[in-house]
């Protein structure tokens, strides 16, 4: 019984001491490497509703998203847009 009590006391002491310990609270920088949060990829989002002219691509499909963006890019070319 005494051994168990001693063990629990020791465990409590260790846990208490660990709780008072200092945690690393800063980002550890590595030279030349991006350290920030990861960013999502645009094609992983679903297209907006048609009323917002969000276009039409398949969620997660990069090729279809690039096709959508390419169509928007070519819309900047008024020679093509209004015909020859």
């Amino acid at each position, binding site marked *: 019984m005494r051994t168990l009590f001693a063990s629990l006391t020791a465990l409590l002491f260790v846990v208490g001491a660990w709780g008072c310990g200092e945690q690393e609270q800063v980002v550890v920088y590595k030279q030349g490497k991006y350290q920030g949060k990861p960013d999502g990829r645009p094609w992983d989002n679903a297209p907006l509703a048609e009323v917002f002219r969000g276009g039409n*691509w398949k969620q997660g499909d990069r090729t279809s998203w690039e096709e959508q963006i390419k169509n928007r890019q070519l819309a900047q070319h008024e020679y093509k847009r209004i015909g020859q």
Partner: protein
Amino acid sequence: MARMKFLCDAERCIECNGCVTACKNENEVPWGVNRRRVVTLNDGVIGAEKSISVACMHCSDAPCMAVCPVDCFYRTDDGVVLHDKDLCIGCGYCFYACPFGAPQFPQAGAFGLRGKMDKCTFCAGGPEPDRSEAEFRKYGRNRLAEGKLPACAEMCSTKALLGGDGDVIADIYRDRVVRRGKGSEVWGWGTAYGPGRPGAQPPAPVKKS
């Protein structure tokens, strides 16, 4: 792989500042921060005035990224240079390094305290969940995630400012310049910005009697 770039046609830009306004409105950019601005050469010199809209050019080998002491910059798969505002310490090194003056620093507080860097994101948001409130508040709209191009380019009334994949917009620009029929002068500094006149001054204002 797409490499997102801006291209401004100086023969078309009429200095209307529509791109600046569109950017401000779309991203709710705070007062004192200009992610985009229009620069005019030979201002007031008749026949020699040329304007160009300038923002972050999303360099392939970005100097801001090279000098950042906390490495808060990253490049997306589309070649857009973005940064994490949670990491930025607002030191201003990127401002010194950037040849275009793209990094901006909001003034906060009574003593002009310099805030975290803000710059053009190519309307691609930042490292927060796409199209979220947090992303909009920190970085502005994520139009690429909506299948759209930057608001400045899509709003441009004369289509002087083109935005998108470098190959595609270069083809558009080339097509335009060829149609202008300038022969051997089809490309280059002189065509883009005009010969100008060294030391040219704007005309003196006419005095009304």
